[in-house]
């Protein structure tokens, strides 16, 4: 299957979200040394429901995803980036990893203009011209 076709499929992105949610729940279970039944009790849901979620059989409300994420001591960060840009960079072997970014402006221009930072909900101030600031710094 061509990668472009795969990245354009709904199933691909559903699988990513479902398995990321599985990863968050599984990490929480391991970290807190509890089992599914105990977590289901904490969340006030049935064990069957939790198993369904963990088996990738999950297509419920956004509010439930948020509930589950918070209950597992995680925050769900959902970002929307250009499909065209994503596929172009993916084919070049790049990936979009989340990195923490300070809210204040950085004196390092590359940091402020890094396209892999701009997809975060915490974004650098776009009104600040990093390039000209860099030139100013160069000129003293």
């Amino acid at each position, binding site marked *: 299957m061509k990668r472009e*076709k795969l990245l354009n499929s709904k199933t691909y992105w559903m699988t990513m979200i*479902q*398995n990321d949610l599985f990863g968050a729940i*599984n990490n929480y279970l391991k970290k807190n040394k509890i089992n599914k039944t105990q977590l289901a009790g904490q969340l006030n849901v049935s064990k069957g429901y939790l198993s369904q979620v963990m088996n990738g059989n999950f297509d419920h409300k956004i509010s439930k995803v948020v509930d589950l994420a918070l209950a597992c001591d995680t925050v769900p960060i959902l970002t929307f980036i250009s499909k065209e840009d994503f596929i172009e960079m993916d084919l070049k072997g790049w990936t979009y990893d989340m990195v923490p970014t300070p809210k204040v402006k950085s004196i390092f221009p590359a940091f402020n203009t890094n396209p892999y930072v701009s997809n975060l909900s915490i974004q650098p101030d776009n009104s600040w011209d990093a390039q000209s600031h860099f030139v100013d710094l160069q000129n003293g």
Partner: protein
Amino acid sequence: MSKFVVKDVEGMNGRQAIKQLVVLDNRTDIKKIILADTKGQLEIYEENLETKYENSIEKIYALMDRLSNLRPLNDHEFKDITPRSETVKEYEFKGGDLRVYAIKIPNGKLIILGGYKNKQKQDISAFRALKKLYLKSLIG
């Protein structure tokens, strides 16, 4: 006895290799093989699927992509099915009613056979027979 070569699974670009077995006729001269023109087990399986399985095969590709990128996978859709006596690990990918069987190879997985939910038993037997032949061919 058949001859075997391996080739990459198209659409994967992660850190862990996802390859597929290519089964050749015993008389084939391996040196003259052009891999791009020779169909692997996954390609043959995918080509012969009915259109109703489109989402299911996309799911399997999505799971392989996650595996390739070392991201968590739920153990319902990607299972270790290795019998106790076996030394080479065996895995099953599950996407809807489809199943794809693989073995562990250095730095990755090798797809051996594709099958269906309602033929699991026969498919696993065929998969293990093919696995045995392939491993035997490596010893010479």
